[in-house]
């Protein structure tokens, strides 16, 4: 029975009969780590870390977080699968959990519920790291006093990330990335407007224009977060630093102009919720 998966992607070198083998009547609970192929006909609960191929045979059951080079599932898996090379769900597989691997194959008949990510994990991690280190470094060095400067830099980065026509479209998309925030704040005014029906909508339109200049501190914070995400492709693609410097000055104004619509769209709830009191006092 152990032989049946030989024809699948990850199998070629795992073709010799696997040494390690969990029989159908055996149950392992805890952490399992190793460098050799593992065939599971029984049950494993816990975590599995394997520098080789994990075969979950038809009667095998895995209730575990799995990290392996390859995973071939013919049995049942409840838990997340991370494979450095490939994941194969054969026709008899039943999987509930997230799959993460550069190569994933799901055969017809396989039952699967969960998310799939094919991003190579290392690249993603590296990018995030690079972006974080760059972004934080820049923003911290010029933190409170030179907020403006920070904005303009970010703005140029965003702008250089995309070719000219795509710029405006890319920005709203990128703004949408942190949706939880936006929703959290939209919820607040929504509730507030329940009891007091008329004033809330009335306030919205004319408060907008004056508020922007009043609260510059809010916006940079928002920008920093979002642009950290967008920023790094720009850094990669831009090899000429001279160009950045040239753009730096005009970019400050442009950045603002470009930002206005997006602020209204997504960041709006935030200033509304917080700024309400302020504006009332002023009035």
């Amino acid at each position, binding site marked *: 029975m152990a032989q049946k998966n030989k024809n699948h992607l990850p199998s070629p070198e795992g073709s010799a009969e696997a040494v390690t083998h969990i*029989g159908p009547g055996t*149950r392992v609970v805890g952490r399992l780590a190793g460098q050799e192929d593992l065939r599971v006909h029984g049950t494993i609960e816990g975590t599995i870390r394997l520098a080789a191929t994990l075969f979950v045979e038809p009667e095998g059951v895995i209730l575990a977080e799995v990290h392996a080079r390859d995973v071939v599932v013919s049995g049942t898996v409840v838990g997340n699968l991370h494979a450095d090379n490939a994941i194969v769900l054969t026709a008899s597989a039943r999987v509930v959990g997230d799959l993460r691997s550069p190569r994933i194959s799901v055969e017809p008949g396989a039952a699967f519920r969960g998310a799939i990510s094919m991003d190579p994990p290392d690249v993603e991690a590296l990018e995030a790291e690079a972006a974080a280190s760059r972004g934080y470094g820049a923003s911290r060095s010029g933190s409170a006093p030179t907020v403006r400067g920070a904005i303009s830099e970010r703005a140029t980065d965003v702008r250089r990330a995309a070719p000219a026509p795509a710029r405006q479209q890319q920005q709203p998309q990128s703004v949408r990335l942190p949706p939880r925030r936006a929703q959290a704040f939209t919820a607040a005014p929504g509730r507030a407007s329940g009891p007091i029906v008329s004033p809330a909508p009335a306030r919205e339109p004319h408060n907008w224009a004056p508020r922007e200049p009043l609260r510059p501190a809010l916006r940079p914070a928002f920008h920093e977060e979002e642009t950290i995400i967008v920023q790094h492709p720009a850094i990669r693609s831009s090899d000429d630093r001279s160009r950045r410097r040239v753009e730096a000055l005009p970019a400050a104004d442009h950045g603002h102009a470009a930002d206005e619509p997006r602020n209204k769209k997504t960041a709006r709830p935030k200033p509304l919720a917080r700024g309400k009191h302020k504006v009332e006092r002023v009035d």
Partner: protein
Amino acid sequence: MATTVIGTSIVIDGEISGEEHLVVHGTVKGRINVRDSLVVENGGLVEATVESSSITVNGTVNGDISASERAELRPNSTVVGDIRAPRILIADGASFKGTVDMGG
């Protein structure tokens, strides 16, 4: 015959239980509870409380051993812990530290 084999490079930290023959070439820490026989092969390391019907040790066991039928320590084996079994074989060359309880 269904068997379970733990390969040389495998490390298990936790509990193994089952009804089958279990062969350990690798490392198991925690607890082993099998109804059939257990063999700790040369190079195998078990740091666990072991319960089984029949236990054969060629490698190393640190922990208490409880066998319902027999326990056998082969030459070159190392066992530190208490052994409880109705029949116990300790071969010449085996290293053992602990107490023996044959039920009396």
